[in-house]
């Protein structure tokens, strides 16, 4: 059953119709939240809060796709967490948890896995140095692979703003990764 059909059932008060939406989008939203917050506990809270708000606010979903709307709610929740984070530093132990939740490529050998992990760590850290709005832009685009149009919906900004933010965000990410030999093996020559 597609999103719209489930939504119609939800609007008629059918609680069971909401559950498939949760199953369909929870991992995608969690992945986004994890990249934005860098913290598994916060990311799980973001997803929980997203579906709680969505459950209560279904009538406000007008003229948007369910997916883009859920991302919009999740981005807003993540922003709330981000603001709280500026007052409460992340617990470094929680970062460890984040690594094991990522899915390693089972086909890689030990060395390649180690390199992949090093590379992933560098990207995660670099991502967290980006200003929030640029981090959101590059995560929605390159992690969740939203289209420009979906991003415009999810962020409630014009298409041109979406494109410029993605562009700026990727540039900032590349700059932040300059020193990483795992990402740029010939970094010294390149830069």
């Amino acid at each position: 059953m597609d999103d719209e059909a489930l939504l119609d059932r939800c609007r008629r008060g059918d609680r069971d119709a909401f559950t498939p939406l949760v199953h369909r989008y929870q991992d995608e939203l969690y992945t986004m939240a994890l990249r934005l917050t860098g913290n598994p506990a916060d990311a799980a809270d973001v997803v929980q809060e997203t579906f709680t708000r969505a459950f209560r606010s279904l009538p406000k979903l007008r003229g948007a796709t369910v997916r883009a709307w859920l991302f919009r709610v999740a981005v807003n929740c993540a922003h709330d967490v981000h603001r709280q984070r500026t007052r409460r530093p992340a617990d470094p132990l929680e970062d460890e948890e984040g690594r094991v939740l990522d899915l390693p490529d089972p086909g890689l050998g030990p060395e390649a896995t180690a390199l992949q992990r090093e590379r992933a760590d560098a990207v995660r850290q670099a991502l967290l140095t980006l200003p929030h709005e640029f981090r959101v832009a590059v995560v929605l685009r390159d992690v969740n692979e939203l289209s420009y149009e979906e991003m415009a919906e999810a962020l409630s900004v014009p298409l041109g703003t979406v494109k410029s933010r993605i562009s700026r965000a990727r540039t900032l990410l590349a700059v932040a990764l300059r020193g990483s030999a795992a990402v740029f093996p010939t970094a010294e020559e390149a830069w």
Partner: protein
Amino acid sequence: MVSDHVEGLFSAAYDGELSGDARAAFDRHLAECSACAAAFAQLSTAADALRELGPARMPRPVRLPEGAPIPQRRLVRLPARPSWGRGLVAGLTAAGMVAVAGGIAAVVIVTRPNSGVVSRGSASYAEGGGALPAGAVNVPAAGNPATCAGEACSAAVPAPSPTPASEHASVTCPAELQDTSAAAAAQPPAGFSNHVTQDNGTTTVVIATQAASFPPGQTVDIYARVIDDATGAVWLPCAYLAGPEAGPSSGAEAAGGGTTAATPVAGLNVGGVPVVEVVVPKLAVSGEAYEVVVEGLSGVGEVQPQQVSLSIEVT
């Protein structure tokens, strides 16, 4: 430095968004410009690395609130509030309800004591005033505040004074303020000390004025925001200035007087923050209380639109 080259096209090129000719020109430039080629490779490598992170799994089950999802809200007529006067109620039911379907009430009505509605209008922005960037405002398709939802409203409420197109952009109230932070919007700007905030669980309404009392004829800047708690969407609603109870002799005749023209029509911003303006009726009597009224959507389990007001007193 590559700023004079094709740096601005890197991201679009990475996404495959350049058209055939543009892509060919881009590739020709890279072939001749080692700086651009290197920078583009670095941006691509960084984006590729991010994409390689792969998906993660939600580590714990999502718990949903008890009960059924909130069913789609049904719009209801506002109960008449005697203290507002007949005209305001007429305006609300005729025009406001249609706009509430799109999110929030949509007309600005000014009443004066013992009269009912004097006139109405909607907020607009001065062109080039810098209050809002081009394209920053979403006007909902549902309802049309500018026309006050048709003849029923026009009959009940005199039309607003025409505003020269050269001075003002189109009527935009209510309007979504794009790219506006919900947290920032929830805080009235400096100087708006008379304020109220109400959150019904799904929608936060903020109303603020720069003083709690105003003389007759005074223009009042109203900072009003309706914030969707779920999405963080911020709306500039219209506002009503509701006066004391209409007396038995009030009516169309009294309402027809032009001395208190409702004027939420100027270029409206305070320090770059868009506001709505109304004018305290010139015939208002010192000591009387007026209410600045804004409406949001109805809240969880409620059957009426959320309605929030802020009192001001006539000096």
